[in-house]
């Protein structure tokens, strides 16, 4: 016996979730680009695109609810839907963090750059990589990969520490940098939160595969 319509709906929510993740990854990458290149148009574009991220999240949520109401999913099907429902919330919030970075890029666009950006783009790169790997773990139903990804959160935390200390030094040495440095700590904070939400996705992957909730990495922050 097959359940063609049900299978199609299940595949659809997973495809859409992956599409949502791609939108968020692009937003993170562009946020850093807008910051680095002081690109006001790009920053505005990211802010406008966040509405699409939110909309997609609600569309996926709607489809999940419809499947629950009409198909009575059970076992791994049910776990898939529950995992998707949680993951899309994390993705949407990551999109908000990317939007936050874009807003800071706008604030800093008219100011002289405080310093060359090295660790912040590095944080964004690690967080983005973690995000895509977590979705790979989801697609492949690979709980071990999900667990390994969470170890990378420590790297992001360490970079965050480094950025924070460096910016404090700037502020202590020259109070005129306080505003810009504070804005940059917000950028770093947004990236730290993004990586932290990736660990939530990884926890959902473990739940999806093994049927139990396991706290994978308690972030320093």
């Amino acid at each position, binding site marked *: *016996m*097959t*359940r063609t319509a*049900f299978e199609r709906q299940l595949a659809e929510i997973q495809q859409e979730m992956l599409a949502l993740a791609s939108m968020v990854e692009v937003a993170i990458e562009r946020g850093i680009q807008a910051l680095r290149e002081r690109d006001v148009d790009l920053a505005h574009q990211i802010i406008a695109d966040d509405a699409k991220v939110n909309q997609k999240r609600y569309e996926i949520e709607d489809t999940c609810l419809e499947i629950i109401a009409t198909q*009575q*999913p*059970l*076992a*791994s*099907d*049910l*776990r898939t839907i529950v995992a998707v429902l949680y993951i899309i919330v994390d993705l949407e919030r990551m999109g908000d963090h990317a939007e936050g970075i874009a807003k800071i890029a706008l604030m800093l666009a008219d100011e002289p750059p405080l310093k060359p950006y090295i660790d912040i783009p590095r944080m964004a790169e690690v967080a983005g990589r973690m995000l895509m790997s977590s979705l790979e773990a989801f697609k492949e139903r690979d709980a071990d990969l999900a667990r390994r990804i969470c170890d990378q959160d420590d790297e992001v935390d360490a970079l965050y520490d480094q950025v924070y200390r460096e910016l404090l030094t700037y502020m202590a040495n020259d109070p005129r940098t306080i505003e810009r440095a504070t804005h940059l700590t917000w950028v770093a904070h947004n990236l730290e939160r993004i990586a932290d939400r990736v660990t939530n996705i990884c926890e959902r992957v473990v739940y999806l595969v*093994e*049927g*139990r909730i396991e706290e994978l990495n308690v972030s320093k922050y």
Partner: protein
Amino acid sequence: MVKSDQQLTAPPFPLPVLSPTINSVESAQADGDLAIALRSLSAWYGSFQALRDVTMAVLRQRITAIIGPSGCGKSTLIRCLNRMNDLIPGFRLTGQVLFDGQDIYSKRVDPVDVRRRIGMVFQKPNPFPKSIYENAAFGPRINGYVGNLDEIVERALLLAALWDEVKDKDKLHKSALTLSGGQQQRLCIARALAVEPEVILMDEPCSALDPVATLKIEDLMRELAQNYTIVIVTHNMQQAARVADSTAVLMMNEDRAGELIEYGPTREVFTNPKEKRTEDYITGRFG
């Protein structure tokens, strides 16, 4: 009380873990939590083997659901629990059905006594073509009860959540066949309860009922589980998921004999089954 030559002795039964305190047959038995234990139960209709080597424990005052695809032996299994198959020509059985530690198939056991203590409700409501009152009074009457039948009838109908709908004198003495399907099924439950059984077996009790009547029976089952042990066979997996504390999954093996492939707390079976075959069945990919 019937005497049995078979006593339950530390068997390796798979037992659903429903609470941290129920984790072995021995402790369940010691705590009085074990109602029925099946040990290596196999059953045949002539040369056809319907069940193979079913070993499981039914917990007291819990609802145990038996699910599985058509022809997997669910009904045979539940009917083994109160010797309802005895009357079928060519039926035979090996293994044991231990009730309170006694094998109900022991030669010293009277099947009538077994069926009094382990009552049954069937798929299609089957009230006798008598009044509502006489249906509820039937069991006690044929068992030679000489006390106040009115009290027994009222209690049974109350327990079956039918009393309020039939308590008027006129209604009570009307034919049971004037009741709706759902009411008739509750009357059948009342009839089973009137002889004060310890266990109630329900073989697809809602399959002939509409959704509202079905939910009423399910509510009633939850009520009754406070004092009775209930075993239900159902085709409706959602029903098992809604009402049962533990769920047993039967499936045919390659010889078409039913085997127990998974048994555990209902929540586990429906969210994270251990067996691939259970997963395929409950998600509708098989069966």
